[in-house]
């Protein structure tokens, strides 16, 4: 039999249910792998050894549960009752959530174990995990490179077999881009598909929780467990995921021409074209489409996100939780606590967002960005009148070197292909398509709202091909 750490979620759950191995044995296998590799990778902020053991000891063979005895790693901005949750920030270094995020409750209800909390850019602001207050995570394929971000710890943990699957969050590309950099599957669900209750908010109109996994089938399993309406998050909706389209025959796949221009590494472009040809050979029809406002996505994102950030991060006041710097004035206490607790990127975004929403500027920045967001969403709607889904690169390059991107703008550019679909609320799946010079490369499938099943089906076709 294969090593437990190499098994799929279904194989682990069935193995535990059938008595081939116990949940404790499964947990031990992953904890051993963590002990062996974590020092080099720094994928976790907290490993939940004792808590997960207590959970595993309660699992009995024969029990129901789609994730029976399956240890899952959670990005550290997802609240876990009684288990430290830092969001990658020093400002809540010692914060113990008094309540459970809905996604965690749903995983536990299916028999999963909480393996630990993974490293991330502070408050999910970043594309490399270098902004974490807990040190950078290293890419398992090349330790001198970043794993991507902001869900870099989750992606690295899955890629290195430290966890069979993980949850991440994706606001501008924070699941899809690290999945591509680490050679794993990452799904950013349709906005509203998965509850955000208990997820530390970055940009409420964009944040979604989704799975990172080794296979498309595993990502699908986790998605099916966590999705669905939650009365604690009014933005969630119940939807019918049954796809009207099935099979690759005559499937219309659009290649948006704006995604193959300047800034895209040549080898990545070639790989996406190869993936397109292989899908065409399997019966799909390729069509060039245009998303003319793609170029504006980044500018829209860097108004909307900081604006929502400046409001969402106002709750960190030094009084109810987190770093507190005493002062005789309450204004100074709050201001100094925030100054001490937040790292550079949250501070930058709070300042930018406060500015974008300030008197005299809100219309020319925030309102204008919200209008251009409409144009971007309309681009996609027009494209989906002609094609069933879109195939693009996930990121313009493979994983870059730690420390390589020094100014904030060049870092922001690594999300240019994931941001537009997110602004439109659409689902996106990043699927590995082999390696380029020893580094994984991913392709992104974007579909209409709630088309996740179609994305999984096409993703599996890509997965089956042997890529160099």
């Amino acid at each position: 039999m294969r090593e437990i750490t190499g098994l799929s979620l279904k194989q682990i759950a069935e193995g535990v249910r059938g008595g081939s191995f116990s949940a404790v044995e499964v947990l031990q296998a992953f904890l051993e792998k963590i002990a062996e590799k974590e020092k080099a990778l720094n994928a976790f902020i907290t490993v939940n050894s004792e808590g997960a053991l207590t959970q595993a000891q309660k699992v009995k063979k024969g029990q129901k549960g789609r994730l029976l005895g399956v240890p899952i790693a959670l990005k550290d901005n997802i609240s876990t009752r009684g288990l430290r949750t830092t969001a990658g920030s020093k400002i809540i270094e010692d914060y113990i959530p008094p309540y459970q995020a809905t996604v965690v409750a749903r995983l536990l209800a299916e028999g999963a174990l909480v393996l630990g909390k993974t490293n991330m850019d502070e408050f999910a602001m970043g594309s490399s995990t270098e902004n974490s207050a807990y040190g950078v995570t290293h890419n398992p394929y090349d330790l001198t490179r970043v794993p991507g971000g902001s869900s870099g710890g989750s992606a690295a943990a899955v890629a290195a077999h430290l966890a069979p699957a993980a949850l991440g969050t994706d606001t501008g590309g924070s699941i899809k881009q690290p999945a591509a950099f680490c050679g794993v599957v990452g799904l950013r669900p349709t906005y509203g598909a998965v509850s955000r209750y208990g997820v530390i908010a970055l940009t409420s109109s964009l944040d979604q929780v989704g799975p990172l996994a080794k296979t498309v089938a595993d990502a699908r399993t986790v998605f099916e467990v966590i999705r669905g309406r939650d009365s604690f998050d009014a933005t969630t909706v119940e939807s019918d995921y049954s796809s009207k389209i099935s099979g690759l025959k005559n499937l219309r796949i659009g290649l948006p021409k704006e995604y193959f221009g300047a800034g895209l590494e040549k080898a990545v472009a070639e790989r996406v074209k190869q993936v397109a040809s292989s899908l065409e050979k399997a019966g799909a029809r390729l069509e060039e489409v245009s998303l003319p406002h793609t170029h504006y996505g980044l500018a829209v994102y860097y108004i909307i996100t900081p604006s929502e950030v400046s409001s969402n991060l106002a709750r960190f006041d030094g009084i109810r939780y987190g770093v507190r710097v005493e002062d005789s004035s309450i204004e100074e206490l709050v201001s100094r606590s925030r100054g001490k607790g937040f790292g550079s990127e949250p501070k930058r975004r709070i300042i930018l967002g406060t500015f974008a929403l300030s008197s005299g500027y809100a219309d020319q920045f925030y309102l204008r960005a919200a209008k251009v967001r409409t144009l971007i969403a309309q681009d996609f709607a027009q494209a989906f009148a002609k094609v069933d889904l879109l195939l693009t690169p996930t990121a313009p390059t493979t994983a870059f070197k730690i420390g390589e991107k020094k100014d904030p703008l060049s870092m922001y550019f690594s999300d240019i292909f994931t941001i537009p679909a997110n602004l439109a609320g659409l689902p996106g799946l990043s699927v590995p398509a082999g390696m380029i010079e020893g580094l994984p490369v991913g392709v992104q499938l974007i579909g209409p709202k709630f088309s996740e099943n179609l994305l999984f089906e096409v993703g599996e076709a890509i997965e089956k091909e042997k890529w160099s």
Partner: protein
Amino acid sequence: MEMKKAVLDIDYIARLACLSLTPPEKKSFSQQLADVLAQIEELKKLDVAKVEPTFQTTGATDVLRRDEVRKERVLTAPEALANAKETERGYFRVPKII
């Protein structure tokens, strides 16, 4: 609407955001944010006079719930205070305000 030239007064914005910054932070943020704002100027090239803004993408409106207490999402006072650095007799403690 008349377009105001975007000038970021970092002291004023930091005060609005209730965020104390060190002099080096003020200097580097001013420069970096000027670069970001220059990038954002791109949006002014588009005519959006007749475009409706998008604030959310689900299209949901007026999502209501019953006006009743749901115990599973109510924190007890000790739970609510558990992460605070300073508490007193079941309250959060802050400096004298009045």
